[in-house]
């Protein structure tokens, strides 16, 4: 494939492209599902193709094909160049890319237990283990949907500026949806996922059945012992899982430079953040938010982005101050910066756009006990179900699934569906203490058109928020 990728870049330059980039991607894997104890069958993924992106006269063109012959790739290149030329006539200013140092690199994530050597039936055993452990709790769980997926992503990226990056990244995940029915009430843990870059050993070590058991036991307790949450201004301690979704939605997304400049306006939207807000305070001094693609075995892992730029941790907020946006080469140029390697494409048939990887609230200096002990009246939100945010990323809401009352420094009974509905600035300005320990939770981040759901981790430390106007359903 190396030759075909190089051929595509050369062909584009020959046809008059000012810049050319070709990306071969091959994805192989299996997925399995189990619905209410019954296996649903096997899905084998075998997908590959080449995408070509070019700049001609300041216009951008992209074409892809999964017919991997020289003729078909040449046809694709021709189309991309033609599309870019035509697009350049409907532009006010030409698209330019930032200057970067490029490398020729091969990297690979090793599997200790290679899932390609494991039979589908053995993989199904992982789901059976969840079934059995959930059944053993004695909790009534009438609807159970479990799925397993593994994939190996093989990429070869070359561009006309000298990048040549080849990578092999295996990814493995388990997802469950569990509906608990007790005492004539229904509660649900939907789309709970555990996911890693690496081999099957990571799932085995993580023990997703333990997570499932905790979830159904917490939901049963919520049904029998849950009370209304307090209303009005109280303190709120959020778990790493809730901190994770909050940093992803209200820090990561609005700091994507393509949104800031309006490129995603018709789909994912724009941003309340403007270029001149760099250096502005957005949260309290204890708030630092980092997006880091390089965390080993993370779900959002990569070492070079899909424009061939070397990845590094990005400090989006440092001590409460906006310090950095997420950029690709197009928007780094507009900002007069170098790219911080946030360009990701989900497959060969998608263009690289600005994305998060693993976004988290950086740890502070409080133990969990210290966070709780001086809360007079408050709520500890452990997990959430419903969440959403407006398309400028300013008005958000998270509804607790598992949550508890905090009274005089002690965690008490479960509370039902406490609702945090708050602006981004108020959220991060209300944090007065952050925990020491960090944990991560996987998700699929949606953006782009056509959609590009990319694997990400979200997480961080516990955080304590003061004087939050909490709601009830």
């Amino acid at each position, binding site marked *: 494939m190396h030759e075909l990728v190089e051929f595509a870049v050369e062909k584009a330059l020959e046809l008059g492209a000012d810049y050319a980039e070709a990306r071969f991607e091959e994805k192989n894997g*299996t997925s399995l599902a189990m619905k209410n104890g*019954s*296996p*649903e*069958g*096997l*899905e*084998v993924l*075998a*997908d590959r*193709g080449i995408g070509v992106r070019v700049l001609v006269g300041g*216009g*951008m*063109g*992209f*074409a*892809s094909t999964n*017919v991997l012959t020289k003729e078909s790739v040449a046809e694709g290149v021709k*189309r*991309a160049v033609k*599309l870019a030329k*035509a*697009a350049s006539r*409907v*532009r*006010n*200013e030409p698209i330019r890319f930032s200057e970067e140092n490029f490398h020729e690199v091969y990297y690979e994530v090793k599997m200790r237990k290679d899932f390609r050597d494991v*039979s*589908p*039936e053995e993989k*199904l055993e992982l789901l059976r283990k969840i079934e059995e452990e959930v059944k053993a709790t004695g909790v009534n769980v009438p*609807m*159970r*949907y479990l799925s397993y997926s593994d994939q190996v992503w093989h990429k070869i990226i070359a561009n006309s500026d000298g990048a040549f990056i080849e990578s092999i990244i295996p990814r493995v995940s388990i997802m469950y949806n*569990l*509906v608990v029915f007790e005492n004539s009430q229904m509660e*649900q843990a*939907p789309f709970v996922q555990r996911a890693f870059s690496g081999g099957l050993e990571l799932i085995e070590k993580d023990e997703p059945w333990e997570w499932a058991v905790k979830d159904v036991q917490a939901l049963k307790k919520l049904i029998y012992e849950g009370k209304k949450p307090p209303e009005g201004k109280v303190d709120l301690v959020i778990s790493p899982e809730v901190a994770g979704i909050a940093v992803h939605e209200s820090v990561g997304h609005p700091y994507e430079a393509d949104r800031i400049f*309006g*490129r*995603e*306006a*018709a789909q994912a*939207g*724009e941003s309340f953040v403007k270029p001149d807000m760099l250096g502005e305070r957005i949260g309290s001094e204890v708030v630092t938010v980092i997006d880091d693609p390089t965390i080993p075995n993370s779900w959002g892992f990569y070492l070079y982005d899909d424009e061939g730029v070397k990845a590094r941790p990005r400090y989006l907020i440092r001590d409460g101050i906006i310090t950095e946006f997420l950029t690709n080469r197009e928007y780094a140029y507009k900002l007069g910066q170098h790219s911080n390697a946030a360009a990701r494409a989900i497959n060969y*048939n998608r263009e690289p756009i600005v994305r998060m990887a693993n976004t988290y609230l950086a740890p502070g200096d409080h133990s969990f006990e210290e966070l709780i002990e001086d809360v007079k009246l408050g709520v500890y939100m452990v997990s959430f*179900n*419903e969440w*959403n945010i*407006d*398309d400028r990323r300013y008005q958000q809401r998270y509804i607790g699934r598992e949550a508890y009352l905090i009274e005089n420094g002690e965690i008490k009974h479960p509370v039902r569906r406490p609702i945090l*509905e*708050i*602006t981004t600035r*108020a959220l991060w300005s209300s944090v007065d203490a952050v925990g020491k320990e960090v944990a991560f939770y996987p998700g699929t981040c949606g953006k782009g*058109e056509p*959609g590009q759901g990319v694997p990400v981790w979200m997480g961080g430390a516990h955080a304590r928020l003061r004087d*939050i106007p909490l*709601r009830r*359903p």
Partner: protein
Amino acid sequence: MFELNEFILKKAKELGFGDVVILTYETNRRQVRFANNEITVAKHWHERKVELFVELEKRIAGTTITELSEENIERTLKMLLGNMKGMSPKEDYYGIAEGPFEYKDIPETFDKAIVELDEPNEYVERAINAALEQGAKRVAGVLYTDHDKVYLTTSNGIEAFDEGTGIEISVRAFIGDLESGHGTNSVRVLKKFDPESAGRKAGEIASLAKNPEQGPEGRFDVVFDPLAFANLLGYMSFMTSAYAVEAGFSPFVNKLGQKVANEVVIIKDVGNLPNGYGSRKFDDEGVPTRKTTIIENGTFKTFLLNTSLARKYKTETTANAGLIMPRAWNIVLEPGEYSREELFGEVKRGIYITNVWYTRFQNYVTGDFSTIPRDGIFLIEDGNLKPIRNIRVSDNLLGILSRIEAMGRESFHIHWWEVRTPVTTPYVLVKDVGITRATK
């Protein structure tokens, strides 16, 4: 392509597979994306692929083959066989449809003019200009052209072919940061394409939405624009799939034959809808697509089914395969009798929501959810529209269906980034919709 399908079927049978379904696609798709009144990228996709479904003594597997050499096809089939032999069976698998069937052409689903269209940028410029003429300052959006061929062969003697085209545009117009509007137009034949209408609507709403004030909270009568209601019906369509019901993702569980909506509500899935963006002659196992009434006068009539699930529940398929998960083709909410003016006239004090996004459920089985209005939002007071902002619809899906009070008499076919299953819907008036907002 049928030769390829025949080859795969022959080899699969030689290896001992039972049910075999081969769906071969050839697609050509173009996209022009734009923002800030200029084209940000233009794309072309060419794909050829075989989607293969095989069964071996109630064990089932699926895969996609893109490298179509005879060697790779045989290798893939042998790999599937090897993997399936040790697998546990799917006990509730009941087979695929038995043909042959007769297929009818669906009017307005193929247009040579779209295949031959050289460059669609002119339509983008027309849409942008239509929005700018209404007072918009920044216009963003996307245009697609589609040309698809699908060849189906099954081990039950079915051979079917369909070829379709489409062209569609989605336009969002902005004046300031908080003032925007959205319009779409999705059609299958070029002469019905009206990019200006999408641009004009986006520009008009943006202009009406100038200087919005913080919206109220409480319970309000809400007029949902077709764009907004299509979003909710799109989520509902997934929940009507028997698969989603079994997997715990639907409030329609145990609701067959029960009231789930106001009596005025009739919701159908129409697989053979003329000019429908999701229309196709046959489903994934070759059953001719048709009209299926899901909700009739407020009563839930059927889940969406394929042959296997239909046999499991001792009924007939609704021609919605998905071999694993049945899916809707085009959801249609039957229109009412109100003109747009009459519908708004029913509301003394309420809210007009032109678009929503980010619909998320707290509990899929109870249907509790919220969604965020975006683009123009208006307080309706004594026939006047006053722009507001920053509110959230916080309600229950079955509750919304039950409180549908009236519907417009004109329908709109909606398909865009937030509405992936095409939906045809009129303007809809819903009573007592829960509205919340951030208070800090």
